[in-house]
């Protein structure tokens, strides 16, 4: 009886200890997934926002990006590097086009080709509704590069993979 009690307490301590370690010291993959979760959360909106809220969200979104972020979207011939201010402006403009917007990421495959650099291949899904009640449902495969700067993983490059080539 005493043995079972001791074993149960030991097991509970082990479980609590393991959970605490995992929570307080997350792996690099978890940190990167957290960045994508934040981007998804801050980019999404479920109701109309005033201009101040739009700008505020835009400011939050750019904290996830490197000083200079590369963007490559072959189907639309977009290929360039953008500063944080430009990204904030584009994000605010893009979000203002929708009355409701949801950005989700799936199937994150993370690799670390070198120290402080992460490559992520993932699927991005954008759903939303324009003020004119037009539905949007876009799914694309993306390749991202993140750099670890001052302990934080920041988006450095985004590339849209051409899965279906017209």
């Amino acid at each position, binding site marked *: 009886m005493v043995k079972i009690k001791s074993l149960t307490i030991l097991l509970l301590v082990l479980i609590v200890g393991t959970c605490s370690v995992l929570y307080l010291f997350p792996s690099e993959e978890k940190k990167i997934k957290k960045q994508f979760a934040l981007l998804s959360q801050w980019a999404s909106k479920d109701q109309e926002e005033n201009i101040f809220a739009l700008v505020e969200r835009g400011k939050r979104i750019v904290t996830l990006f490197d000083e200079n972020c590369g963007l490559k979207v072959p189907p639309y011939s977009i290929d360039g590097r953008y500063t944080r201010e430009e990204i904030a402006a584009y994000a605010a403009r893009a979000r203002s086009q929708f009355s409701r917007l949801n950005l989700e990421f*799936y*199937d994150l495959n993370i690799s670390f080709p070198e120290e402080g650099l992460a490559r992520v291949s993932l699927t991005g899904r954008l759903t939303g509704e324009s003020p004119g009640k037009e539905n949007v*449902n876009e799914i*694309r495969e993306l390749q991202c590069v993140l750099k670890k700067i001052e302990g934080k993983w920041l988006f450095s490059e985004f590339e849209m993979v051409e*899965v279906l080539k017209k």
Partner: protein
Amino acid sequence: MAGNHKVRKFFFPSFTGKFLIRVSIVALSAYLFFGRICVPIRIQGFSMEPTYRNGGVNFCWRLGYTFAQPKRYDVVAVGLAGRKVMLLKRVIAVEGESVEFREGKLFVDGQGIDEPYVRYPCTWNLSPRRVDPGCVYVVGDNRNMPIENHYFGQTPIRRIMGVPLW
């Protein structure tokens, strides 16, 4: 009495070693079958209407092209970065063929192709383009939108994940 005992034993089995082994085998088989071979899917989006409606459920049969190649009129699941999200599209041309749209009508190698599954009006115009080796050309059935708003094109056969079960 004996019948009652059997029914009781069926719904309230004894947790013997044999029972646990049987449960483990069933659980593992179900995981492998429904996780890797016959994957349940939920259709989200309107690009394959009316053939497959938004919100519908189906299964993706992953073994559909184990011993065969996709051919015209096949509905296929196109993989993106992983297995959680796929595109559901119809094959309209295979490698080497040229694809063209004239006022919404499909032409393959200069010949008009009947498409009884396209129920909504379509006014697309797309200049002829040849399907690369190892690729198929896929399009959704719902073409009642500007051609720029529909995600379609050629994709490598290796991206074809399977076929819907019905």
